[in-house]
């Protein structure tokens, strides 16, 4: 990905306040309670109202937020020391009780928190002093702090308890300490107003609205008519179209996204490596990537993008060098045919492939697969699903033979993906091991990845997992598109923002008017 301001020339921002800024989401959060709707949509909205204890940047560094300091006195404890002076938008002061409640709420697997799967090592969360929160872990978890930081948005316990089951609906809007407060929430718009009680720097926008825009086409129309001022570009091939809008610019951000197909290795026909290879050889990944992303996406060489590996590998070059050693499966009908012939289903099979309509790459990829495998006697039926239905099925661990999958890594570590999608622990709801695939070696690797704090050991485990995945093909890695944001006429960013900035609320502090 590039830096700020590709496309048209950018006018410099000025330090004046402006009335409002409207940001488009693919769809509005189903619930404003992260525990009920653990998607990036929700995170983008609530991160302006509630602040996390700390933030983790794209390069893995931590930045303090509500917590003035975070310490790890031993491998199984994390201690957050709250900064003084923070108060909720309703005027009540922030206490450790609120933070404890909030953390417990998002990690409560029994109550069905969708976020609970992110940190499974939690043993207890307690307020050890009125300003100290101590999290005890069951084992040394190298990414517990990272993962907690992404879900640790603190809301007022009092308000949340008053809302009860309605928390997250328009009648139970969370109350936070962030720069904005909820003004209203409807099916077409969520309106935020600046929070006068916010203790730190006030952003320049007096109000922020989120509106739902299903596709890029609608987004472009909306930006033309100034109905929105910013949006994430999902169909990155259309960057040119966005740039054509008068006064608009697109910004390419470094992204940690991976997309792949899952093959259920526990059931025929994909319990057979030859069938899986036949599939892998039947996708024109380069071609589809070009058709879907144009020049703005790459084909993955391994299950995770290089950016996720750079930290644990020690350097970008190491990561790159390793990825180049992995075996690749390019479109090769001859190989596909011979692989299928060796499989237990030499004459072909029938399979339905569900995919979410929110991933622009899914349908073309599946149609490509469908067409290429037709000659082999394989009948493929694509089955579109709304994002909600798709997510529900995925979290319920309802695994059909093949399906589309896309993960946005919220932390820059292989743990954001690998330990979640392989290994025994992921083979049950809400685990994401949708291939139901593991090996003894994998179990060891997962243990090393999640239980060790030694970088070298973790890099070795990472390489091992990626290698096995590429050989055994429980997953077929596909593409990593760039993360692109479009800004409408009259707005710009004062300094570069990254994907994690967009998710954790930092971005709004950098939005500037150009005149």
């Amino acid at each position, binding site marked *: 990905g590039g830096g700020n301001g590709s496309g048209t020339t950018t006018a410099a921002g000025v330090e004046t306040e402006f009335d409002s800024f409207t940001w488009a989401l693919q769809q509005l959060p189903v619930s404003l309670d992260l525990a009920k709707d653990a998607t990036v949509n929700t995170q983008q909205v609530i991160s302006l109202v509630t602040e996390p204890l700390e933030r983790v940047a794209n390069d893995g560094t931590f930045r303090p937020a509500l917590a003035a300091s975070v310490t790890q006195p031993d491998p199984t404890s994390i201690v957050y020391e709250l900064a003084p002076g923070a108060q909720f938008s309703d005027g009540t002061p922030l206490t450790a009780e609120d933070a404890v409640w909030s953390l417990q709420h998002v990690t409560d697997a029994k109550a069905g928190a969708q976020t609970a799967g992110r940190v499974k090592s939690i043993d207890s969360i307690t307020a050890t002093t009125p300003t100290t929160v101590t999290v005890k872990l069951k084992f040394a978890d190298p990414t517990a702090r990272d993962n907690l930081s992404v879900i640790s948005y603190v809301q007022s316990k009092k308000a949340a308890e008053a809302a009860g089951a309605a928390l997250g609906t328009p009648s139970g809007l969370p109350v936070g300490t962030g720069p904005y407060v909820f003004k209203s929430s409807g099916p077409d718009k969520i309106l935020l107003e600046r929070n006068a009680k916010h203790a730190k720097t006030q952003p320049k926008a007096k109000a922020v609205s989120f509106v739902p825009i299903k*596709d*890029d*086409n609608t987004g*472009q*129309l909306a930006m033309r008519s100034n109905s929105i001022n910013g949006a994430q570009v999902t*169909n990155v091939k*259309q960057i*040119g*179209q966005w740039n054509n809008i008068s006064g608009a610019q697109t910004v390419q951000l470094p992204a940690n996204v991976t997309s792949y197909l899952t093959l259920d290795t526990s059931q025929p026909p994909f319990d057979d490596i030859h069938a899986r290879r036949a599939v892998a050889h039947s996708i*024109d990944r*380069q*071609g*589809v990537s*070009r*058709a*879907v992303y144009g020049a703005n996406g790459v084909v993955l060489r391994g299950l995770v993008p290089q950016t996720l590996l750079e930290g644990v590998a020690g350097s970008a070059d190491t990561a790159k060098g390793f990825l180049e050693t992995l075996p690749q499966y390019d479109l090769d009908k001859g190989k596909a045919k011979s692989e299928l012939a060796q499989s237990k289903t030499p004459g072909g099979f029938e399979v339905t492939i569900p995919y979410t*309509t929110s991933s622009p790459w899914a*349908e*073309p990829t*599946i*149609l*490509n697969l*469908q*067409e290429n495998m*037709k000659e082999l006697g394989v009948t493929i*039926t*694509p*089955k*579109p699903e709304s994002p909600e239905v798709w997510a529900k099925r995925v979290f319920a661990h309802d695994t059909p033979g093949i399906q589309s999958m896309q993960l946005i890594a919220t932390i820059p570590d292989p743990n954001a993906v690998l330990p979640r999608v392989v290994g025994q622990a992921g083979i049950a709801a809400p685990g994401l091991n949708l291939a139901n695939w593991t090996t003894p070696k994998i179990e060891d690797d997962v243990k090393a990845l999640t239980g060790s704090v030694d970088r070298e050991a973790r890099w070795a485990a990472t390489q091992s997992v990626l290698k096995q995945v590429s050989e055994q093909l429980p997953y077929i890695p596909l593409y990593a598109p760039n993360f692109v944001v479009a800004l409408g006429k009259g707005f710009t960013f004062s300094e570069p923002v990254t994907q994690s900035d967009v998710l954790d609320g930092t971005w709004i502090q950098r939005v500037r008017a150009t005149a």
Partner: protein
Amino acid sequence: MKRLGAPAIVAAVPLAVILVCVVTGDLLAPFPPNAQDLMLSSSGPGAQHWLGTDDLGRDVLSRVISGARVAVVGPLLVALVAVAVGVCLGLAAAYYRGRVDAVISRLVDVMYALPALLVAIVVVGISSGGYAVTVLVLSLLSVPTAIRMIRSAASVQCGLPYVEAAQSLRLPARTVMFRHVLPNIVPTVVATFLLDFVVALIAFSALAFLGIGGQPGSAEWGVMIADGREQILSEPWLSLAPAVLIILTAVCATVLGDSVYDRLTTRREAR
């Protein structure tokens, strides 16, 4: 045909062409409709691909030609079922009057008040039904209109003495209905058929547009519009071609139906 007038002839030509496409399927298509050429994805209309290609490099012209079958056969089936049921129940209601008529008409009244497309959206959508379910649901929903139109035309006929004369010959009810009354309401039956066809065609495309009932990636016109919608600003030809075809088919069928119906009324006046 000539007696139907110029508009009907003009309307019949495109319909005939489309019907030929329906019958021959892919034969007339210059390319296999699903053949992908990712090197040529999203190219505009040109010498080789007259109507351009879509994102997977499939030839749009071939796809609209081969899609005619799926796009038209469903509505045709719907119209056929509706008219078949409509003829049977409509004739029965008109012929027997009394309680039979009351029961049929009451049912029809209730169903007639339904917003058909809405019901189809809900039922097909909730049940995640495919093409067959869509055909079934739309057929059911088209039946009331068909019964209504045929019943009212048949009622007029059943009140005429020639029907009573046939009854006085003690012919079986079936004979009177199908051999005497039916030939005299053929224009209404044809008009009903075409109207139901148009309504179903639009309903199918609307459902496909909403992502309900259609098979994604298929060349069905409604699905093609829906698929092309996101590119309407950059690649308008993708949705334009199928949209034009749907509208053309529907307009022609409407005009043809009107002509047939007009002929009925003028013939009645002229007696």
